[in-house]
């Protein structure tokens, strides 16, 4: 709102005075503008998301764990598969923390008859050897293995969820848009798919195929898309009668243009939320498969296979199972928090969960 002074139309040019360059005191108006400015949907969502403390904590944790999965295995000289059989089952030892009496490489051995504290680093003469999370039964560094396992688990979860999203979304959208006989057939097929326990599909598939990362992703893909397609179909049924679809159709848009270009952008919110909920499920399923013995083949590792290795000696060397368990629990916890936050941010009217 600049001050308007009509300059004199006469030949005498207007000479500005100092007063013209003083800002108008418009703080009230500016505040009004900021408060009632029309904001884009996504900006609103982001503001609501960051207002929720638990969601932010979850996101920070996910970022930290992902970063560690990327740089963690390279932070010391050990490799995930390098075995040093003379240095097995060593307790965690960190150079900087040693002096405080924690992470100094001593561990308390407990048996039914009693317990004693030993420091295997000193007893075996390994004064300058450091395993930050300890070493496992084959003398492998648990720090490196934990983070490379996290990397594998995250890759599997992300890939499986992404493929699920694409399949489930397309299936649900097509089924919902066409309706009638197509919908009927597609839904009956889905009901049958849904009637087969996930556990059974995954187990049987892994029995037939070679175990490995691709097989696990494939198995997860086959089972998780059902939930995604339900959500996509429900959203489609809500949207397809709306005016903008009618308008697009009147303008001559094709069916698939309407489905993927007009409606898809409008349902991306619930889909992303569902993706966030699917990732912990995928991580869990992978860990479960590894525990059962259908996971990543050795010497590669995932969080699940690390847990099942640690389980074999978890009463004698509990430190071996703690890192993968904590990382996995934190990952699942954070993804759930973020998904919750996202769901609320996307749909503030929805009932609070």
């Amino acid at each position, binding site marked *: 709102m600049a001050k308007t002074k009509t300059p004199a139309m006469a030949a005498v040019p207007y000479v500005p005075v100092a007063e013209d360059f003083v800002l108008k005191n418009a703080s009230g108006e500016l505040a009004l503008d900021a408060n009632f400015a029309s904001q884009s949907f996504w900006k609103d969502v982001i503001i609501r998301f960051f207002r929720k403390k638990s969601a932010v904590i979850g996101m920070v944790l996910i970022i930290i764990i992902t970063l560690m999965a990327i740089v963690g295995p390279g932070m010391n000289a050990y490799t995930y598969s390098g075995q040093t059989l003379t240095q097995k089952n060593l307790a965690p030892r960190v150079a900087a923390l040693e002096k405080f009496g924690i992470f100094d490489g001593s561990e308390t051995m407990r048996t039914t008859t009693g317990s004693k504290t030993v420091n295997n680093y000193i007893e075996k003469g390994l004064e300058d050897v450091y395993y930050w999370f300890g070493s496992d039964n084959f003398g492998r560094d648990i720090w490196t293995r934990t983070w490379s396992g996290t990397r594998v688990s995250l890759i599997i979860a992300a890939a499986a969820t992404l493929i699920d999203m694409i399949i489930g979304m397309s299936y649900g959208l097509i089924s919902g848009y066409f309706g009638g006989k197509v919908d009927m057939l597609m839904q009956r097929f889905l009901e049958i798919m849904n009637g*087969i326990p996930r*556990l059974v599909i995954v187990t049987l598939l892994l029995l037939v195929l070679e175990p490995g990362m691709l097989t696990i992703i494939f198995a997860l893909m086959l089972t998780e898309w059902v939930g995604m397609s339900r959500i996509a179909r429900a959203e489609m049924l809500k949207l397809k009668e709306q005016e903008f679809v009618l308008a697009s159709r009147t303008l001559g848009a094709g069916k698939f243009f309407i489905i993927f270009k007009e409606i898809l952008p409008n349902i991306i919110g619930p889909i992303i939320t569902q993706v966030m909920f699917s990732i912990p499920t995928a991580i869990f399923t992978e*860990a*479960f498969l590894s525990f059962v013995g259908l996971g990543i083949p050795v010497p590669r590792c995932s969080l699940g296979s690390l847990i099942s290795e640690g389980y074999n000696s978890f009463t004698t060397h509990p430190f071996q199972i703690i890192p993968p368990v904590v990382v*996995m629990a934190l990952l699942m916890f954070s993804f*759930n928090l973020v998904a919750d936050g996202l769901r609320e941010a996307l749909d503030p009217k929805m009932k609070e969960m």
Partner: protein
Amino acid sequence: MKKYTLKRLLTSLFTLLAILLVLFILMQLMPGSPFNDEKLNDDQRAVLYAKYGLDQPVLVQFFRYVGNMLKGDYGVSYNISKNTPISQLIQTRLPISIGIGGAAVALGALMGLILGLIAALKHGTFWDTIATIISVIGVSVPSYVFALGLSYTLGFRMQWFPMLYNAQLATQSSVLPSIALSMFTMASIARFTRTEMLEVLDSDYMLLAESKGISGPALIFRHALRNALIPIITVLAPLIVDLMTGSLVVEKIFAIPGVGSLLVNAIQSNDYNVVISLSFIYSAMYIAIMLVVDILYGVIDPRIRLAKEGD
């Protein structure tokens, strides 16, 4: 209602057949043959094939297979305990698994209801926060992590409960696995109860009930909880199914001689016949649970019934 039930029954039957077909195809695809002994010559192998009916056409084999499965004749175990009928293996194990699973469902549902009720009634207070944190942890930490934690602390360090299943101390041995399994159910039920109760407590009929002078437990339990329970029952079915998955690992951790650990052992020792029979039993139980809950839901809530009949 009849039409709806019939429709659901048919779908379930179809699903069961589809599963049998998948299982049968998988059996055909399995690498190797059940008779891998190198000492067998071709003639002996042919005799064995004839004995188990593996020389018949595929279609005949399939129908015989379906018939046998439905009759409960699952064939014999090849590796785990040689030539023992699988139905016999399962007979002793199923009750143990069902007992522990049932205890877990009951415990989880009860604790979840209590937790959810507290959170809803004390909405926005310290108790609500505590209940929410417990339920988020319960949902996001897998049951076998709880199992490991419980088995290490209460089993190994405190020695309150046996660490491994002991048939003589069946009740004490079932405590830790049941708790570990119930955590997920508890957390999910707590979340749903809280949401539903908050909605119900906010409704007009609760205001009416209150203004008519009803108060205290009668108000909460007879008027509020009853209405909140309907959606909670629906989530119980998928929860029971998740619990079946969880039971596999938990049974393995506590060395429980149940169906879950049998399946894990069968997978690890490539006993395909056992894996496939157990997959069938799991699927059948799953389908049955889904069917019962869907029909029950229609009985409880007439709105659902009417809507579904309109389809």
